[in-house]
Structure formats: structure tokens, C-alpha cells
């Protein structure tokens, strides 16, 4: 009778010598692919990502620094560039908080109440995703432009929207509206109203319930939505291009400024400004990854 260790040795020998003995059978997991298929799939994915995502990112920075750090700094400190950066920050600073409020309100209404026209409202929230940004911009021109629906009234009252900052803010708010609402609706629907009901039975007012219960429950999803909303607000081109009129130093945001510079064959300056946008994208990406790890922990904690 062989003891356990010799059996182990024998098995190791058999496994090492192939499957001829038929005592050990090596098989890939049932759902797994063969090694070749796996290598090809991974290779294709990496090649694709490198070619279409990583390479352009590298090119942006290489081009921006082609003429040296001095030219790079000069391109960014030039008055029109500074104005574009300021305008972009300002537009985001207005549009993101607005959509924060709208998004939370819309998500709250959709997730916690039943009312007629609810599914219509949900489709409406998705509208900016499905409409081309250019169309969105044109709609605002038709409404608020000099020949537009409200044009006459605005001229008489000295209100300027199109080819001015308010138009850019409006277009940006429109385009970035769904990001926060879309992020919150599924989460709030899943959480239901139990926590709020408990808070109220414990004596909390509506406002206290919102600040102490509802908001903490959605904080990571909200932050995530704000991040995506902000990235889009700063990077939006199409809708803003239509309504801005591209008045240099006044109504050009960073993406518009990049285009103008590029069309003037000033590629170093164009890429310098573009690199700031790319950097912003990278920061957003890192923050997003960090949040996702935190956020998924919260989700996991909830489920057991």
C-alpha cells in the first residue's frame, strides 16, 4: 500500500509526462477559450486601444512641446488663450452647479414619485444624448438669435444671448444635462424611499431628511456624475460653436480656441491648449477610477 506522498509524486510524474496515462486530465475551464484565441483577443484589444486612444494622446503632448517649453508656455499665456481658459472655467462653473440641481431634482422626481407623464420625462432627459449638439445649438439660435422667436423682444430689452456668454452657458447646460440625472436615477430607484420614511418618523423635517439621508446615500454617484458633466462641459464643441460666434478673446472656449489656432496653421499653440484639455481628461479619468473603486465598495456593502 503506497503512502500518500508517493501517490502525490506519481501524480506529479504523470501530469508532467502528459496525459497518456489518463489518470489526470487537464482541461480549460468550460467557458474558457484556448490559449491562442486568448492571445489574439488580448492582442487585438491592446493594439486597438494603443492606436486609437493612447497614440493620439501622446501626439497631443509631443506636438505641444515640439517647439520647446518656452513656446508651450507662451501659447498658454497669450491673452486670447487665457481668455479662452477663463471662459471655459466660468461656463463649467455655471453649467455644472445648475445641472447638479436640475439633475438631483429630476432624478428625485423620477425615482421617488409616480406621476402622469413620468416616462415622457425620462425620455426627455435622454434627449441631449440623442440630439446632435449642432442641432441643439441651432435651436438656441432660432429661439434667441436676432431673427429668432424672442429676438425682437431681446433687442428691445438689451438682452444678449446668442454670440455671447449666456448662449454658451445655455448650450452647455443642455448638452451636459443627462450626465448627473442618468447617474442618479437607477441608484435612487433601487434605494427606494424607506430611508427617507424612517427619517421622517424619527422627526426629521424634509430638508433634514434630504441633507442627512438622501444626499449621503447618493454622494458617490453624484460626484461621479458631476465629474462626467464637468468633463463634457469643458470639452463641448458642437453646440457651443454654433451659438458662440467665435469672437476671439470674448466668446471662444478652449475647444473653439484650439480649432481657430489649428486653422491658422499655428499647430504648436493649438496643441498646447489641446494638451490642457487632454490633461483635464486624464485627471477626470483618474478621479473616475478612484471613485468607481470607492463607489463599488458601497454597492457591495449594500447588497449583503
Amino acid at each position, binding site marked *: 500500500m503506497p503512502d500518500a506522498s508517493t501517490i502525490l509524486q506519481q501524480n506529479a510524474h504523470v501530469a508532467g509526462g502528459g496525459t497518456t496515462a489518463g489518470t489526470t486530465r487537464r482541461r480549460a475551464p468550460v467557458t474558457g477559450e484556448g490559449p491562442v484565441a486568448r492571445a489574439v483577443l488580448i492582442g487585438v484589444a491592446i493594439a486597438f486601444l494603443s492606436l486609437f486612444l493612447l497614440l493620439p494622446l501622446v501626439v497631443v503632448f509631443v506636438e505641444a512641446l515640439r517647439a520647446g517649453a518656452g513656446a508651450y508656455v507662451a501659447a498658454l499665456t497669450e491673452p486670447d488663450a487665457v481668455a479662452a481658459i477663463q471662459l471655459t472655467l466660468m461656463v463649467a462653473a455655471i453649467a455644472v452647479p445648475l445641472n447638479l440641481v436640475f439633475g438631483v431634482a429630476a432624478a428625485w422626481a423620477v425615482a421617488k414619485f409616480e406621476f402622469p407623464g413620468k416616462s415622457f420625462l425620462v425620455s426627455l432627459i435622454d434627449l441631449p444624448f440623442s440630439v446632435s449638439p449642432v442641432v441643439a445649438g441651432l435651436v438656441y439660435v432660432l429661439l434667441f438669435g436676432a431673427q429668432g422667436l424672442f429676438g425682437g423682444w431681446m433687442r428691445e430689452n438689451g438682452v444678449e444671448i446668442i454670440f455671447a456668454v449666456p448662449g454658451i452657458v445655455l448650450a452647455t447646460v443642455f448638452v451636459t444635462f443627462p450626465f448627473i440625472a442618468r447617474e442618479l436615477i437607477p441608484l435612487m430607484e433601487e434605494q427606494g424611499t*424607506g430611508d427617507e420614511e424612517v*427619517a421622517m*418618523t*424619527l*422627526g426629521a423635517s424634509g430638508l433634514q431628511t434630504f441633507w442627512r439621508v438622501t444626499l*449621503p*446615500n447618493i454622494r458617490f454617484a453624484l460626484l461621479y456624475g458631476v465629474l462626467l458633466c464637468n468633463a463634457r462641459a469643458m470639452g463641448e464643441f458642437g453646440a457651443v460653436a454654433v451659438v458662440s460666434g467665435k469672437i476671439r478673446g470674448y466668446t471662444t472656449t478652449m475647444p473653439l480656441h484650439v480649432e481657430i489656432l489649428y486653422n491658422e496653421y499655428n499647430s504648436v499653440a493649438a496643441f498646447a491648449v489641446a494638451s490642457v484639455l487632454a490633461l483635464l481628461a486624464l485627471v477626470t479619468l483618474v478621479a473616475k477610477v478612484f471613485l468607481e473603486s470607492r463607489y463599488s465598495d458601497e454597492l457591495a456593502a449594500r447588497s449583503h
Partner: protein
Amino acid sequence: MRISIRNIVKAFEGGLGRPALNGVSLDIRSGELVALLGPSGSGKTTLLRVIAGLEVAQSGTLLFGDEDASDMSVQERKVGFVFQHYALFRHLTVADNIAFGLNVRDRATRPPPAEIRRRVDDLLELVQLASYGKRYPAQLSGGQRQRVALARALAVEPRVLLLDEPFGALDAQVRRDLRRWLRDIHHRTGHTTVFVTHDQEEALELADRVAVLSGGKVEQVGTPDEIYDTPASPFVYRFVGESGSVPVEFRDGRMWLGKYALPIPTDFESSQAGDLFLRPQDVEIVEREAPDAVAARIVGLRRSGATRRAEISIGGVSGPIETVALPQAVLSVGEEVGVRIRKGQFFPRA
């Protein structure tokens, strides 16, 4: 706090015609532990939520003591509500969850921090979670979470404690432990308590009185003994405890099951048809030739804890009826036996 519920009607928008509560009246005495028992859709949870102020009734009145609470807000009612799925605030520690109701009070009525801390510690002690104050809800088991939810409800010194299927999400062993524990807590704190359950065993074991609901109406209110021993309607008989029924009729001052006269005294004069409702212990398996035996056939045998149960079909006229089989009796499925029906409750057929 005495609670008087008078003719409460509550229909949900888009409900299928029938109101969730269709004229419910119920008196809950101060310090009493009352169970609202019923199948899903019977309106028991809606009634609990109406008492809490989480739902607004279309008509009827609700009195807390002598005070009309019908139009009070949720906050004004000062009830403690415990949900089936705990609804603990996941971003707060156990201690902060319990302190929540005290922390949200305005400055005039909020106890000082040291007092809040002391009260939280006392409650943690009461629910046997003394060392768990700093943990988060996600780090607790289901039973522990439900105890925290109860402590949180007790922290605000509620006028009435309302529990919605408090043990519904827990497994059997934890349920039993918590049931005993809740009974104990109720004895010690003396809160008027109303809990909703669809589990008749839980209701009978725990409650001082049970209100059986069906289709938005109260079918019967009584002590567990009254509910089990003298059910007021076929519904209560069927819903509470195990039961079966056989069609019977009165003729010539006797009760007849088909061609068999049953040895059950009757006081019915006229002839009347109806159903005789039976508990397992009302039906005894006997020899086929025994006096008063009714012919029956065994259609199933099963074991339930300490007892063996036989399912029988009587006289070819009834569906399977449970009986308690004698442990030593050798029975087999398909066997023809006799049964003696010693008592039962008659309900005339509508």
C-alpha cells in the same frame, strides 16, 4: 398610548377598484402588543402605514389617546417605525443611527451630547449590541441590523412602536430568537406595539391580541386562543392553523356527511347545508368498523417534527384533510381506514 382606528378607508390611485383598506376599525389598548395578521394584499401593511402617517386615509378617524391624529404629520405623530428591510442609514455608524432621531431635533428640545451618548449606550445595552456602536450597518448580520433598527425607533421615546414584518427577511432560527427577545423587550419597556406579519405562528406566539385582516377588512380581533379556537369566519379558520373542510348538511336534528351521521351535537332546527371545518386533532383514525367511523382513504403520509401526519380523503367528497396519525399505527398510502370526527366548526354555505 391607546389607539382608536375608526372606519379607515384607503384606496391607492390606479388600484384595481378595491380599496386597500375598506372601512377598518380597531382599538389598540395602551401597552398592548397587537399583531396585524393577513395574507399579502390584505391591507395590513397599509393600515400600519396609515397609523404612522406614511399613508393618508381618504376617510375615517385615527385617535392617539383622545387626540385626533388623522391630520397630524408623520413627524408630529412620534411613532417608532421599523421596516422589514431595516432601512438603516448606511453612511452612519450604529451609534449615529440610533442617535439620529435625537440629533435632528431643534436646539430647544435636543438633549445635550453627553445625554444622547448615554441614551445610545443604554439602548445598545438593551438590544444586546453594547460593543457594536462604532460599526457600520454593512458589518452587521440581519438579526443585528433589525435590533439596531428597533433601538433607533425606541430612542425617540415613541408613543407607539410600529413594526412592518420585522422578522420577514431573517432565517428561521434568528426569527425564533428575535421573537422571544421582542416579547421580552415589550415586557420591559411597555410600549404600545403593533406589528404586521403574514406568519400566523408568529402572531399567535407573540401578540396579546391578533387582528386578522382580509381584503381590506378586519375579519376578527381576539386573543390568540380566541382566534385559534373559535375562528369567526371560514377565512380565519383556513388562514390560522391547519385546517380542512368537509361538506355537511343538517337533517332531522343531525349532521350528515354524505350517508354518515356525525357524532357532533347540533342545535340547528331547520335543514341547512354548509362546511364543517376541522383541525388535524379533530380527526382520529380508527378501525373501519368502529362506531361512528366514516370511511376514508389515506392519500399521503408525512412527518412534521414530533408528529406524523396523514392526509386523508373522506367519503370521496373532500379534498385532502390533515390528521394526526398515531405514532405506532402502521399506515400506508392508499389504505382504506375509518375516521372519527369528534368536533369541528360549522359555517353555513353562503
